């Protein structure tokens, strides 16, 4: 078993992205060590118990046990409807199976393990009752607008698409929907997941989840239609306007232009011309650009120049047709606006990968991302299994995350962030809710004594 040489020390984890490393550092042996020593069982249990720790009379001690988990084992064996009475049962199950992937499902009306006992009565008594509102953003859904990579690859040029997606969605979840307890997680290779954990979010029906997903949906397309974003010429809804002004416009005109040069070749700019519904304007711009094909400007400068020309032309012709008025925004949205996987969000019983799993293809841990600092996040610098194992070997076997060195251990930083930014405020709010609904219940029973 060969060890890849790690170029630098544990502090600075930047890897030169011009030569992507193929890290072959995922294997069952490392995985055992990871689940034996590093996976944060207590934190995950605390999170998913949502305050039902049995300490308050209003607690539901069976709550955690009604949550569905699924394991994907080596050789793609898939085990659904797993449930655990408490943290140590969960820990034992993970340590005896060493799953390649752990998914978290919904909290059901009865223990998933016992669902068959309720199936005979005809009407379905085994139903989901609570589930986080979740989102899945995968960079492969942007393949038609990123030119540096495609498929499973991701690099520092296209990852910022994920960053801007986080900013747009996170802001809206807080400002528009009023949600507070939001966890963003790196999916391990090429995307991000979002877990909205407010009680209100957990109790949303499928129809309501679908509504939120549709609210976020702008891109409607595939290779069968040329214009995939249609804002219909009217002014933008305040949510879209805010996203455009606060995030998308600057991202498009700044970083995106610099890294993708979306006008620099005929193939590239034809795609954009196809989004302009007026054929005269298309030919006008096409003519200009074909003639300047052999200019001495760099790709980036050419691209920027053409964008300015396009904007100017559309501005001067905007009264020609209603559909032209939002054309500039439509182009920006096509290239930068978040593309969420609607199906993941719409159904309560959809399973989603658990945070702190390890991705089998990259060996990277699915660590949380701080939405307030997501510009700093680098998917190619996320700790891998082999780095973590090496760290254990060089620093002694026990990784005690509670001591003051936790900031310097590779995983400790992530766990600390998970606890302080997400878990603690969440649990505080859960406790308050349990207490207040208990008080209400008591008050009601007192009232019912009066005949």
């Amino acid at each position, binding site marked *: 078993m060969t060890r890849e040489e790690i170029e630098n020390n544990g502090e600075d984890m930047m890897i030169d992205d011009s030569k992507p490393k193929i890290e072959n550092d995922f294997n069952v042996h490392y995985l055992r060590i990871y689940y034996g020593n590093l996976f944060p069982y207590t934190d995950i249990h605390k999170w998913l118990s949502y305050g039902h720790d049995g300490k308050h009379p209003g607690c539901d001690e069976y709550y955690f046990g009604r949550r569905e988990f699924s394991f994907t084992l080596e050789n*793609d064996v898939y085990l659904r409807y797993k449930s655990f009475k408490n943290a140590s049962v969960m820990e034992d199950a993970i340590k005896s199976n060493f799953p390649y992937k752990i998914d978290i499902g919904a909290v059901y009306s009865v223990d998933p393990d016992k669902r068959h006992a309720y199936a005979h009565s*005809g*009407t379905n008594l085994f139903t989901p009752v609570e589930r986080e509102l979740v989102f899945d953003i995968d960079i492969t*859904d942007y*393949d*038609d607008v990123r030119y540096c990579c495609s498929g499973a690859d991701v690099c520092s040029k296209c990852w910022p698409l994920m960053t801007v997606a986080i900013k747009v969605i996170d802001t809206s979840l807080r*400002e*528009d*929907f*009023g*949600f507070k307890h939001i966890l963003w997680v790196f999916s391990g290779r090429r995307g991000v997941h979002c877990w909205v954990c407010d009680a*209100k979010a957990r109790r*949303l*029906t499928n*129809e*309501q989840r*679908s*509504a*939120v997903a*549709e*609210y976020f949906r702008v*891109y*409607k*397309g*595939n*290779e*069968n*239609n*040329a*214009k995939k974003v249609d804002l*219909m010429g*009217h*002014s*933008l*809804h*305040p*949510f*879209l*306007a805010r996203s455009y002004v606060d995030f998308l416009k600057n991202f498009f005109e700044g970083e995106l232009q610099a890294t993708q040069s979306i006008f620099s070749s005929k193939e590239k700019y034809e795609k954009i011309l196809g989004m302009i519904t007026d054929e005269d304007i298309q030919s006008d711009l096409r003519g200009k650009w074909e003639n300047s094909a052999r200019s001495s400007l760099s790709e980036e400068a050419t691209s920027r120049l053409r964008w300015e020309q396009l904007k100017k032309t559309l501005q001067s012709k905007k009264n020609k047709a209603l559909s032209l008025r939002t054309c500039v925004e439509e182009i920006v949205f096509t290239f930068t606006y978040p*593309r969420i996987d*609607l*199906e993941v969000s719409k159904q309560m019983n959809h399973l989603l990968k658990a945070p702190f799993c390890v991705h089998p293809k990259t060996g990277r841990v699915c660590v949380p991302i701080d939405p307030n600092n997501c510009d700093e996040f680098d998917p190619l610098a996320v700790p891998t299994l082999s780095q973590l194992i090496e760290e254990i070997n060089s620093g002694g076997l026990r990784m005690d995350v509670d001591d003051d060195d936790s900031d310097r251990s590779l995983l400790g930083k992530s766990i600390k962030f998970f606890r302080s930014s997400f878990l603690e405020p969440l649990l505080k709010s859960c406790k308050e809710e349990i207490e207040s609904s208990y008080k209400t219940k008591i008050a009601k029973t007192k009232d019912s004594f009066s005949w």
Partner: protein
Amino acid sequence: MEVIRSQKRTVSNDVVSTPTLPLYLTAPPMEVRLEEFELFAIDRLRVLKGVSDGLARGRNPNEMDDLVETLWKEHMRLSDVSEMINKDIISHFVLRLVYCRSDELKKWFLSMETALFRHRFRLKKIEEQRAIVGEFGLPYKAVIGAELESLKERLGLVARSLGQILSDVENIYYKVPFEEVPDLVAGRRVLLQKGYAFVAGSQLVSLVVTQFRSHLSKALILTNRKWTTTIREREKDRLTPIVEALSTSYLGPDYTQSNEYADISLKDIDQVSKSSFPLCMRHLFEKLREDHHLKHGGRMQLGLFLKGVGLKLDDALAFWREEFTKKVGSERFDKEYAYAIRHNYGKEGKRTDYTPYACSKIITSAPGAGDHHGCPYRHFSEDNLKAALSRMGLSSRGMEDVMDKVRNKHYQLACTLTFEAVYGTSCDTGINHPNQYFEESQKILKSKTPTAPV
């Protein structure tokens, strides 16, 4: 509600005070004659079927309002207003019995009754609408004063984004938790702030319809329970036969069992796809042959269609395996895709034998990046659609007729015209199911060459 045989019916005094748009919250105490039981239900069913047709043809909300008004007048009108209200209520509750009995029936009934309610509500004057909102006991207050001032600008933006002009004289805004108006949220038709939606007076219909739907959905579950535990047995000589007959009459064949026209074998499938598949399935089929892969939506739409066409499970597995192994390899096929195919045929999981999708379902689907399912008449750009139609053999004149239907959002009529152009005959019933297209096509082709494979 009591069903009796006598000639006279006692009209309860409660009826006079009910509004003209009943909410069907509880079954009122009245007596119903046995003949009325069935007749009223049939008339209402005609209305619901008309609503279903209208929706499938992609009628816009204003068109639906008109359609509902016409349908109601035609089938439900009686000279006496209170008799009319009685008929309305009685027919609704009878149909609840009929349509509570399976998930598919419930779903259809819920959709149609909700749509019917929605459009009847829209036809009412604003004061009547507000009264109905009150009937539901909804606690929402209008937004006033400083709060309204702070929102005015953004409320104006929302109205403009919908192509409307904000008239602050007529429009009152209600502050409502966003969960109560999912369809307004989904369409970005309201301003949202910290979990609240600001619903305009003109959007009240959304609020009310959500309540209506939610209430009816729960009521159907209760009705089903009552039916299976007591009513069905008790009424087995009287009402039960009527109830059971009523549900099968209007939904059309569902193509779960293929008939003798459609029994295709793998070796014929390429030829058959060119000669008899509707455009949506032909596109999926071609893409599958080309890319050796289809995403989930495409696999479902095409897979269930092929099942309806008569492809047996073993042949289906062989067919999909043949294509997918070219791209993902045989091991991955067995692990990731074979299960789903068996699931579609009712051999796995809860063993439901899934029905092939009808046009209404396909038209309302939402294909995204990398997808090829959906209805080409709806989801393709004009250029792509024209290219596809010319590959089906349409002349430019025929294509213009089809495109005209498409531009007016009559997607199924467009498909029907295509059918008529390709086979040179007329299709009076109109296409509303891909398997119907296939069967009609096979009928025509086989009548021309009875023995040769088509």
